[in-house]
């Protein structure tokens, strides 16, 4: 059923476009160490706020322009100066998919010169490389978070709807409680339950847990409504009469009937996770330096220097978030059209 839904979506131009965009984004994230010329923490303090390096075609090969520093943050290309781009050159060591050690990179330039496809930041780190590494965090957090949310949302919602009575009452009061606090305020309150500075890998886990804790409520409420009506249906009653266990009824009868809703809801809510992580990191409460995430990179762009000197390339991570979110929104809308053409456009 799941494959079927996505194949159907791929037949529609909009759905296909969204799926290709997402596919490219995830591939880039997976192979980030190979594509990225530098590591996230590699600094170059002589080249802070370097503008994106221009490409030229010289001596029969692709080269990057060489810049000279006119002012601490003003660079001008040297006429005729160029450094050749080397494809599949040796650079820093990494592990493909975290398994196979390798040191080849898609493209590099000779050591004294640096290639900044999307410019450099306040400590001369390559924005392009950080963007790729940031994609690993920003893109995976949505998938993991939504899996946890949907599992809990389904379990709590379906149990509440199926059993009714005090179980239902307790679950729904809790849901109302969580939904009565504006999302980001709750996020801050939850975040405050933990120490301000946490190691990067634990922080990742922490963000996922916090976001999932906020997210399950809305799913549970809708699943509860669906299972409330499903339990009156004859096939569920028949299963009850036959003496099937509650677990079996939930997984064999309620789950398949709510599955397409879950898929659509998941696709439409992934942006909330990506945006939630970005917002937390942006506020300095999420992923921390020197790790990279799109929200964290944008927080650097808050510097007044950036606004005054037109350092537009530091805003690119925002564009990356934008593209990802729009692709998920489009895909979610297409899936919803397939599942239920009459379903109303939901609010965010």
């Amino acid at each position: 059923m799941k494959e079927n839904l996505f194949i159907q979506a791929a037949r529609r131009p909009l759905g296909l476009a969204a799926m290709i965009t997402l596919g490219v984004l995830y591939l880039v994230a997976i192979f980030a160490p190979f594509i990225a010329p530098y590591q996230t923490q590699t600094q170059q303090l002589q080249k802070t706020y370097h503008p994106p390096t221009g490409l030229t075609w010289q001596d029969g090969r692709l080269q990057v322009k060489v810049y000279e520093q006119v002012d601490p943050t003003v660079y001008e290309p040297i006429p005729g100066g160029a450094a050749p781009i080397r494809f599949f050159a040796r650079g820093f060591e990494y592990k493909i998919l975290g398994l196979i050690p390798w040191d080849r990179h898609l493209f590099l330039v000779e050591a004294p010169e640096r290639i900044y496809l999307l410019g450099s930041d306040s400590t001369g780190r390559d924005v392009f490389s950080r963007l790729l590494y940031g994609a690993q965090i920003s893109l995976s957090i949505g998938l993991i978070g939504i899996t946890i949310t949907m599992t809990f949302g389904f379990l709590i919602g379906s149990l509440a709807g199926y059993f009714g009575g005090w179980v239902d009452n307790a679950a729904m009061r809790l849901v109302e409680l969580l939904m009565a606090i504006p999302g980001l305020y709750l996020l801050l309150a939850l975040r405050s339950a933990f120490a301000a500075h946490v190691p990067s890998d634990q922080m990742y886990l922490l963000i996922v847990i916090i976001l999932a804790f906020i997210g399950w409520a809305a799913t549970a409420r809708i699943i509860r409504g669906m299972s409330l009506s499903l339990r009156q249906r004859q096939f569920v009653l028949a299963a009850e009469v036959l003496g099937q266990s509650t677990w079996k009824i939930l997984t064999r009868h309620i789950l398949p009937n709510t599955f397409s809703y879950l898929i659509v809801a998941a696709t439409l809510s992934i942006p909330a996770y990506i945006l939630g992580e970005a917002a937390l990191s942006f506020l300095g409460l999420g992923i921390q330096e020197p790790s990279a995430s799109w929200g964290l990179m944008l927080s650097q762009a808050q510097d007044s220097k950036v606004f005054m000197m037109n350092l537009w390339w530091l805003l690119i991570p925002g564009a990356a978030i934008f593209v990802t979110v729009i692709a998920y929104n489009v895909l979610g809308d297409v899936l919803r059209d397939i599942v239920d053409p009459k379903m109303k456009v939901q609010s965010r």
Partner: protein
Amino acid sequence: MKTYILKRFIALVPMLLGITFMVFVLMSLTPDDFLTPIRAQPDVDERYIERLEQEFGLDRGPIAQYLLWLGNIFPLHYDGEAERWWQRIGFQVNFGYSWTYRVEVTELLAQRIPATVLLSLSALAFAWCVAIPLGVLAAIYKDSIFDRLTSILAYAALSIPEFFLALIAVFFAAQTGWFPVGGFTSLDHEFMSFPARAADIAYHLILPAFVLGVGGIASLMRIMRSHFLDYLRAEFVTAARAKGVPEGWVMFRHVFRNAINPLISMLGFAFSGLLSGALLVENVMNYPGLGQLVFQAFLRQDQFVVMGAVVMSSVMLIIGNLLADILLAKADPRIRLH
């Protein structure tokens, strides 16, 4: 209607108890408490700290602390003196004391909430004024270039992160100099005449309200369009046309009046998004509202401020929902509240 409103307000009490208890439990899990920065100051007397610990119940368990806090925010006070007891009942909400700002939290909230309410309401008004005409036009001219264009724009507006848009707005303001880069008022606000003051506040409001409103436009517009289309196909519309009602009248009186109802009931939800969005926009655009306050208080472990702000934001959210329900009942006579 009155009993309905009363019921809703009574229902507010257990809700707020639950919210405050949850936030309190979360905050008591934090390794530090709000006295940590004071303890770190070398010039503060230890006896003073001990007295504060006793006063705020920090030497007791979290439940006792919560009850103390709850006792403090309860609006009615009675100091226990039997003599002329009716004069000794004071009406005051005490959210505690802010260590970073050195003022009562209540006073701090009173300063900040108007700015956030003003910002949220202007954003809402802006979103409605743009979204409703666009949604109606997109529905009437369905599948035209205009419809396609607005739906693409709606996707874009829906997908742009608020803080990113806010950054772009600040960037724009700094580059062009057309708008102020932040703040609620200008520096010389105090010396202006009244109309100039109002204009000054409005001038500072334009950009944040625009940024906050943009996300709302998209969802409102799409809902408006889809409901308008639904009612265009309704039988009573065909009937109205058949009996010769002018087309504009049909659109406004029959289609629009019905299609607007779901948007009114969405107002309540919109408020939740606005308060969250305001937190980010206020921080990026340096707009002194509740969101900026709660964020800074959070960073400085100023726990009473965080508690107070979370409570007030939830109250605002619940009141917003209630207002939306009342408004819906007014707009649609078929709906009865009880």
